[in-house]
């Protein structure tokens, strides 16, 4: 029965390939409204159609059959491309569902049985679901990539002076970010031969026990490498919260702002900052 269904569908697919392709393209481009180049769409659909005919020939209607490997690859490539270019899921899936319109039109014109309509309808639906799955997977990949990029972006280590580096922290400090900050800071200490590191938390909205613990770990790691660490950017509300929580920063020097921390680091390395005589404020 299934073999017979496959045979009927195959006959339909091969009956008038050019007409089928044209009809599919017409239906799909009406939905896409010129958002993809016609030639590109035609190439994609032509490849898909020939892959589909081959798959049905040896694999029948079973989409899990290994004969469908090429079809699956083409469909996921199509969805991935659409997902990255910001198409909606329905805009992506509709391209595949339009094949149904084309098949129905051809079946009616060539006077085929109703049975073949049902078979091809189910078959195209399954193809559509496959497209949808790959679309969602591609989108999830994009999201994961972006959050990784954000993490990288938001943790620069900057050199403030010969031997003084600073990490301005912005946003939430979780274990994953702490790990990146720590790695970058320690590597920069080695690369620049710096002896002073300033961790600025002006951009951290709240310091709870977890954030504090991460900060302490980073400082201890930097100290093990022989660097002096200062934590700066402790705003009044953060200071009061830290006291109420009972967190002890021990002998780690802390400063209200980055400027004070830089001055502290400069003095520590024997640099004295003096105003030139007769210039500036008195």
């Amino acid at each position, binding site marked *: 029965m299934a073999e017979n269904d496959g045979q009927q569908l195959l006959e339909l697919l091969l009956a008038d390939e050019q007409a089928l392709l044209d009809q599919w393209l017409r239906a799909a481009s009406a939905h896409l409204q010129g958002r993809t180049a016609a030639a590109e769409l035609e190439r994609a659909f032509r490849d898909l159609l020939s892959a589909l005919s081959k798959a049905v020939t040896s694999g029948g209607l079973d989409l899990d059959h290994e004969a469908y490997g090429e079809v699956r690859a083409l469909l996921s490539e199509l969805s991935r491309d659409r997902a990255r270019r910001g198409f909606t899921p329905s805009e992506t899936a509709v391209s595949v569902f339009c094949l149904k319109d084309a098949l129905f039109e051809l079946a009616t014109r060539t006077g085929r049985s109703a049975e073949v309509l049902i078979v091809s309808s189910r078959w195209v639906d399954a193809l559509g679901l496959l497209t949808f799955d790959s679309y969602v997977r591609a989108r999830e990949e994009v999201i994961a990539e972006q959050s990784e990029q954000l993490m990288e972006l938001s943790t620069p280590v900057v050199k403030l002076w010969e031997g003084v580096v600073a990490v301005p922290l912005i946003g939430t400090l979780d274990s994953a970010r702490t790990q990146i900050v720590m790695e970058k800071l320690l590597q920069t200490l080695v690369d620049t031969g710096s002896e002073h590191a300033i961790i600025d938390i002006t951009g951290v909205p*709240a*310091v*709870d*026990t*977890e954030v504090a*613990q991460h900060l302490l770990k980073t400082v201890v790691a930097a100290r093990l490498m022989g660097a002096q660490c200062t934590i700066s950017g402790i705003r*009044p509300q953060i200071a009061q919260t830290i006291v*109420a929580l009972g*967190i002890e920063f021990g002998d780690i020097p802390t400063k209200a702002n980055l400027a004070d921390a830089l001055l502290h680091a400069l003095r520590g390395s024997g640099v004295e900052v003096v105003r030139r005589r007769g210039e500036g404020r008195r």
Partner: protein
Amino acid sequence: MTSGDDVVRVRQLVRSKAQSIRLSLVDQTKLVTAASELARNTLVHGGSGSARIEVVQRGGRSGIRAVFSDTGPGIADLDLALTPGWTSGGGLGLGLSGAKRLVDEFDIDTEVGRGTSVAITKWSR
């Protein structure tokens, strides 16, 4: 709440509620920090749980009330858990006791095997 991202969401929600009733910046930060500690406790010790944040009124003053509940193992020795510096995990052991000091009202309801529910309130001045 099922993941670390939800702790961030709770924190943002508490902050926006606190801003809506014009809590001072210090009180906002204290409340947000306390909520952050309790949300993480719910997640780490309870496995998962829920957080409910609401604006409350009493005698012409408004406040923010946050309730964190889980159906985890519960706390066997509450006095010990509230001792600063005592920790069952790898933390600093200041979360629960610190959260208590950061807010105006602190109620904890726990039973071993049934779960834990912590309610905190911070009033505007």
